[in-house]
């Protein structure tokens, strides 16, 4: 059990991160000794993995920075901000499609889960998210040198059932057991709570790349109890970028008479330029935009912070309504909130900070990196779930369901059965009966949302209660139990009480994948993942073998070689042959073993060569690491650096 590491993942709209909370100081964050909770960097050393996925013509999937490059060169092969599409139907995203360069599959059937075109293939949003998750999983596995199978993944607090289910599906497809979905603002409060052990009311304002959440929590002796939450799952930095792109595109059309929309590559360049300007304007008063346009023209503009703030004010204002609603639901005035915490990259914008400060009448906390705090909190929750450390053992998160759960009643009205902001897990029991003599099934329409009419709420699923024993109308008494679990996901069970028969439930999720579909995707990707991993390890071990074999070639010509006994030379040659044979196979394990053996066997040779070169005794050297030790000054002829 001890080596079952549970990681925390922030699967963001713009960037994704993986974090871990260790028990001992050995894994402590450099600079924060003993704290133990830290982000796991990727291969390139960066903490952030851009949530971009690209499909290469040779079928290889790229994730992160590598995929971001493809966005500029071949936009139709890359996709970003896919989180916006999770758990949504084609009709929901019509508006989105006008602004985002999502290319939907052409052969989509009504009622089918949406698929996105990437090059010549199509993928559902959970499959694309799974690619990002798999990259994070790999990063963690490389970091630990051990497999990672369990994770806590964060979701926007205001995500509905379908969006949560889609996220969980993505985890399964990526080969991760999702122990818990945690709401992003709540996760952030855990990360902050580690620092300040205190009681009081805090508000977490989480304005990210694609979503906005506000959560109000009461902290009491390690219990983090969410009192109210609100938000908008389609409001974030993306909207600011889109606005700036639209303004610039109009500008370009007016001044230079060029319709930039005709060139996806140019739009992408423009998007990058306005994002850079947006980021710059958080620290400087004005920024310059310069973009190459099709036809060799150049678009140039200077934008001041004042202009920027004027443009984005309406977007920032849209975050204030949910804040006020959450305060009303919590029955609190802004002054009763003790602390305000800012989370999400968009809270770096000075205007956002000012507006939050105005609303709550106090300076918000920004001590923790707003890009990393959610992932850190997810790692804290992961630690709690795996039994807790000294630091987390008294911490407990009590979260709420963000949206009311209802069923469609007579006249197309929503009858609410679990109200929003109810602590989860939460349940409700409803009774149904038949309207016609001998009726053996009853249809139930489950909804999520606050509106009075069913058609204005989100349709979660339609259930058919089947197998009801034929009885006169109104006589059967079917008890249906709705249970929202700690992930915010709904489960339904039913029983006909007169016959005490478990009624069958036929679930038709309105926007989700069926279990079978997810199962197939897991198999698909699992095969690929195994192959991917093997292929990568094979390549890495072959490269390493190449390095050591080439080094040995040089070593043979050295004086040191001549000083070895015949027996020693023969032994090294045997090991060398063994490695050459291993390299010709396609399993990395024998290659690794042979490398280790050859390294071991050439230890003496390496030391002698080293001694000869520097005239001083260096212990513990072997063929592989001689030369890399002292950088450019390393005098040894056998250097790994040469071959890189």
């Amino acid at each position: 059990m001890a080596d079952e590491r549970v990681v925390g993942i922030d699967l963001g709209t713009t960037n994704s991160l993986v974090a871990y909370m260790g028990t001992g100081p050995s894994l402590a964050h450099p600079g924060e000794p003993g704290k133990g909770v830290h982000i796991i960097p990727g291969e390139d050393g960066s903490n952030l993995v851009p949530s971009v996925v690209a499909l290469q013509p040779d079928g290889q999937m790229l994730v992160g920075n590598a995929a971001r490059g493809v966005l500029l060169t071949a936009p139709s092969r890359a996709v970003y901000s896919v989180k916006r599409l999770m758990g949504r139907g084609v009709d929901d995203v019509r508006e989105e499609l006008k602004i985002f360069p999502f290319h939907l599959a052409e052969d989509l059937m009504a009622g089918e889960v949406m698929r996105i075109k990437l090059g010549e293939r199509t993928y559902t949003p959970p499959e694309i998210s799974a690619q990002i998750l798999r990259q994070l999983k790999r990063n963690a596995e490389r970091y630990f040198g051990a497999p990672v199978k369990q994770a806590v993944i964060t979701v926007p607090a205001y995500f509905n059932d379908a969006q949560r289910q889609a996220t969980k599906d993505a985890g399964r497809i990526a080969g991760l057991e999702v122990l818990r979905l945690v709401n992003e603002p709540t996760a952030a409060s855990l990360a902050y709570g580690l620092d300040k052990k205190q009681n009081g009311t805090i508000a977490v304002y989480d304005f990210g790349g694609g979503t906005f959440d506000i959560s109000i929590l009461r902290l009491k002796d390690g219990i983090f109890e969410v009192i109210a939450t609100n938000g908008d799952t389609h409001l974030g930095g993306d909207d600011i970028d889109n606005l700036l792109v639209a303004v610039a595109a109009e500008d370009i059309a007016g001044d230079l008479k060029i319709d930039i929309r005709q060139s996806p590559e140019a739009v992408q360049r423009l998007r990058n330029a306005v994002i850079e300007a947006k980021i710059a304007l958080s620290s400087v008063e004005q920024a310059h935009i310069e973009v190459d346009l099709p036809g060799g023209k150049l678009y140039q503009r200077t934008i001041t912070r004042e202009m920027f703030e004027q443009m984005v004010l309406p977007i920032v204002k849209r975050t204030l309504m949910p804040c006020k609603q959450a305060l009303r639901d919590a029955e609190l005035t802004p002054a009763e909130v003790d602390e305000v915490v800012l989370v999400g990259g968009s809270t770096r914008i000075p205007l956002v900070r000012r507006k939050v400060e105005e609303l709550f009448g106090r300076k918000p906390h920004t001590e923790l990196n707003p890009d990393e705090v959610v992932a850190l909190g997810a790692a804290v929750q992961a630690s709690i779930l795996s039994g807790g450390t000294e630091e987390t053992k008294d911490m407990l998160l009590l979260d709420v369901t963000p949206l009311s759960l209802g069923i469609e009643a007579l006249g197309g009205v929503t009858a609410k059965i679990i109200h929003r902001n109810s602590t989860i897990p939460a349940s409700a029991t409803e009774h149904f009966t038949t309207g016609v003599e001998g009726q053996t099934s009853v249809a139930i329409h489950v909804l999520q949302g606050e509106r009075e009419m069913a058609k204005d709420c989100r349709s979660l699923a339609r259930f058919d209660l089947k197998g009801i024993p034929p009885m006169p109308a109104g006589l059967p008494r079917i008890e249906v139990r709705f249970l929202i679990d700690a992930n915010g996901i709904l489960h339904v069970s039913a029983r006909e009480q007169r016959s005490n028969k478990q009624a069958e439930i036929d679930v038709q999720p309105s926007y989700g994948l069926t279990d079978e579909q997810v199962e197939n995707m897991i198999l698909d990707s699992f095969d690929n993942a195994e192959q991917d991993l093997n292929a990568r390890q094979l390549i890495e071990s072959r490269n390493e073998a190449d390095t050591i074999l080439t080094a040995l070639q040089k070593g043979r010509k050295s004086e040191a070689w001549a000083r070895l006994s015949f027996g020693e030379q023969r032994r090294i040659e045997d090991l060398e042959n063994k490695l050459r044979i291993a390299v010709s196979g396609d399993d990395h394990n024998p290659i690794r073993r042979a490398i280790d053996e050859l390294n071991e066997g050439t230890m003496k040779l390496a030391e002698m060569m080293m001694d000869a070169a520097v005239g001083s005794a260096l212990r513990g050297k072997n063929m592989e690491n001689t030369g890399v030790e002292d950088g450019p000054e390393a005098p040894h002829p056998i250097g790994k650096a040469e071959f890189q």
Partner: protein
Amino acid sequence: MSETGTQLKVLQTRPNQHKCWSCGDMRAEHFCGECGHVQPALPTDFFSFFGLPRRLELDEAKLEDAFYTLSRKLHPDMYSQASQREQLWSLEKTSQLNDAYRTLRDEIARTEYLLSLEGIQMEEQSKVATEQARALGVEKKQTVPPEFLEEAFELNMLLEEARMGEVDDDVREQLDATENSLTARLKGLRDELHKVWQRWDAGDVSATGAMVDVLNRRSYLRNLLRDVQEVLG
């Protein structure tokens, strides 16, 4: 049905006489006092869940403490590495705990819940009925408490007027005054409710009728207040 009934009875007559499935200790109800394992969730009423008598006056601070203490022991977070069976029980127990706490900590929900245990359903049906009537655009058959009849008529005229045209200073002043008076009367009803609670808690079974009356009047005033606040923005 029969199975459920039996379990419920057992729970009510011998609330603390459950044998722990894991170690056999007899004091186990939510979790075992000996070995700490979570116990299967049995059908229970919310008062029994907290080991409380069916009384309406209750110490809300104590209830909160009990909620936190039980949460720490029952919550699914504590069972994430446990057997599937225990995970399920923890989930069911915690949902019972949350449902019970949510209902009991709120004065109105608590009163309505007690009435429902006494076989008097009011909240849900009347609410769905209100929503249905609104959705279908028909007048809901609502029994206006007689003492409000005249006042309600005038207020509705005023609201209608305000919705049609502009809310001028004069109308706003009248609505503000109404808002204040409604708020004050709701507070009065709360005191009245507390008095009826005392009757019930002292063993007066007929207090349920008075409760229904207070709740109905309250719900009527709340609807008026909501309408006023909607117009005032």
